[in-house]
């Protein structure tokens, strides 16, 4: 549930309308000028690569604020990060890198437990494994790409997540988009949350099964959709569905909300549908010992049929995994194309995950894992409550390290991003089409490596920029003790 002032909704729609109108006028002029100039001789009878309509959004809206996205970095994505400056001579149509970098506070990287930079336990082991196994296995898992690091990590992941067996893949996106077609085929039904990640949408489209969407995080709507679909059966033949699977995520990366897992599992069990939980953002970051959203919400891992996760966010590596029963993993090892034809995970990356999980579990002999988990929880709750006190509209549940600050108007997106960069804070802003049209936001990701001073600096900058840009939509809570300056309504 997002709340926004009515006037903001009107002005946002009006701004998008204005941008759209200007874009169409520019396209019209370009068509006229091109028609009078070249007469289409260059194409020589070939069809154009893209219709003018398809990339309208990219050309006329995205390119205008291109400097807020894809910023190159020049250091490890730790709490402070070096951002490369870019210059443009033609109003952001092309950007050129300069050789200057600015050190900024990093509020955009998925570095939940602080493993992204050099770690005292992990990095020496990773360098050792790089020397021993080299940077790549240069082979597919089934040929020669399974080192003993891979088998060790599979067992470790299965133990960590709480399932009998696990399988690894070299890329997180591919984990979803290659597994879902291996599990579901024609005649199956996939019911996915309306705000699921693009990898799940891609996998569902590629599988050939029928796809239905249910309203975000609402078990009642899920039940309605399930009942309707089970009663109707497959389209046109009305035969019963071969398999029904419900796909949800642990933490939704654009909202920062936790999934309503216990109720959704209860609904799925009632109608005998399989469940697939994508824990990309929640594994390692939430839960008392970092085991993800099942531990946090008290759901037995045996109730979720397939648990998926990535190593990119909390473990500072790259790759993904699927944890499920031994039979499912065995089946996937024989059928999933990402296992049979794709190169296996790089061995130093595997070693990084092994060491990171050992630190989280406390098996490296220290309690740094527990400290990190406590710190990220404290940091997230502190930051979120301070932002809400300042009057920002911040989404997300308590304990979630992802907090989107709502911007709404399209012009505030580049304004917020550039002003923050000017004050040495790097934030990530997201707009349409990754989010709904009205609901553009700046997404903050808190890390366990942020100290209290870093967070205070971040809060100060965001507050100043928020005043400049005008995104404090809610009344400010009066401060309990005297602080720097007061903000009036």
């Amino acid at each position: 549930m997002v709340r926004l002032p009515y006037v903001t909704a009107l002005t946002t729609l009006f701004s998008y309308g204005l941008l759209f109108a200007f874009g169409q006028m520019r396209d019209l002029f370009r068509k006229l000028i091109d028609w009078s100039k070249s007469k289409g001789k260059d194409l020589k009878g070939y069809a154009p690569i893209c219709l003018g309509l398809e990339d309208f959004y990219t050309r006329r809206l995205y390119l205008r604020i291109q400097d807020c996205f894809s910023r190159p970095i020049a250091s490890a994505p730790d709490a402070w990060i070096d951002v490369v400056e870019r210059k443009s001579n033609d109003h952001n149509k092309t950007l050129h890198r300069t050789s200057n970098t600015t050190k900024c506070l990093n509020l955009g990287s998925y570095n939940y437990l602080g493993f992204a930079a050099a770690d005292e336990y992990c990095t020496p082991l990773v360098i050792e494994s790089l020397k021993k196994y080299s940077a790549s296995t240069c082979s597919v898992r089934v040929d020669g790409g399974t080192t003993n690091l891979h088998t060790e990590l599979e067992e470790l992941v299965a133990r960590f997540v709480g399932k009998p067996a696990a399988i690894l893949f070299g890329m997180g996106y591919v984990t979803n988009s290659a597994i879902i077609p291996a599990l579901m085929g024609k005649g199956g039904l996939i019911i996915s949350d309306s705000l699921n990640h693009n990898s799940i949408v891609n996998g569902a489209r590629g599988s050939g099964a029928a796809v239905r969407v249910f309203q975000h995080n609402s078990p009642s709507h899920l039940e309605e959709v399930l009942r309707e679909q089970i009663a109707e059966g497959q389209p046109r033949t009305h035969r019963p569905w071969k398999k029904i699977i419900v796909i949800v995520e642990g933490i939704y990366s654009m909202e920062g909300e936790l999934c309503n897992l216990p109720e959704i599992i209860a609904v799925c069990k009632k109608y005998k549908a399989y469940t697939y939980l994508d824990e990309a953002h929640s594994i390692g970051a939430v839960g008392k010992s970092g085991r993800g959203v099942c531990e946090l919400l008290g759901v037995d891992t045996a109730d979720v049929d397939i648990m998926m996760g990535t190593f990119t966010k909390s473990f500072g590596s790259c790759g993904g995994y699927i944890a499920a029963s031994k039979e499912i993993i065995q089946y996937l090892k024989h059928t999933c194309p990402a296992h049979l034809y794709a190169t296996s995970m790089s061995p130093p990356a595997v070693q990084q995950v092994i060491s990171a999980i050992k630190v989280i579990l406390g098996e490296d002999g220290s309690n740094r894992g527990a400290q990190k988990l406590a710190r990220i929880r404290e940091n997230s709750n502190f930051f979120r409550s301070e932002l809400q006190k300042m009057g920002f509209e911040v989404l997300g549940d308590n304990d979630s390290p992802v907090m989107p600050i709502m911007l709404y108007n399209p012009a505030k997106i580049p304004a917020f991003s550039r002003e923050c960069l000017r004050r040495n804070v790097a934030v990530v802003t997201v707009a349409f089409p990754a989010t709904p049209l009205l609901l553009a936001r700046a997404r903050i990701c808190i890390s366990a490596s942020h100290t209290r001073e870093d967070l205070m600096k971040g809060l100060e900058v965001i507050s100043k920029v928020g005043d400049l840009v005008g995104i404090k939509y809610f009344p400010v809570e009066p401060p309990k003790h005297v602080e720097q300056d007061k903000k009036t309504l």
Partner: protein
Amino acid sequence: MAKLYVQTVPPPDLNKNTEWFMYPGVWSTYLFILFFSWLLVLSVFGCTPGMAWTVVNLFHFAITYYFFHWKKGTPFAEDQGIYNNLTWWEQMDNGKQLTRNRKFLTVVPVVLYLIALHTTDYQHPMLFLNTLAVAILVVAKFPNMHKVRIFGING
């Protein structure tokens, strides 16, 4: 001014081209744009209010016909062309007919027509042009015209 807040839930519509229409404030924005364009026409041309409403009606016809019933597909390449044969009107609400949004969009040209006729006192060249505009728009929005291409134009 007391701030009115509205709540919004993201609608389960996967088509990014049409889901923006399901948010609060869209209808009001549409009506405000029509009203302000009438004021703009009045101030720029300095004509009678009736002529201004006729001009607004005709521009509204041209723009909405082009964008709702002529242009097909979506401005996003990620849809991979599944909507390439459907106009915006046909993509609305996933093809369901007679929803609230569709009824609203059908009523607006008719109301605009009545206002234009009333303020011009039903005089002749404006009467014909306005009637033509509204007839084409309303017929294009009928449920029976879903995916119909007359004489294969725009097919």
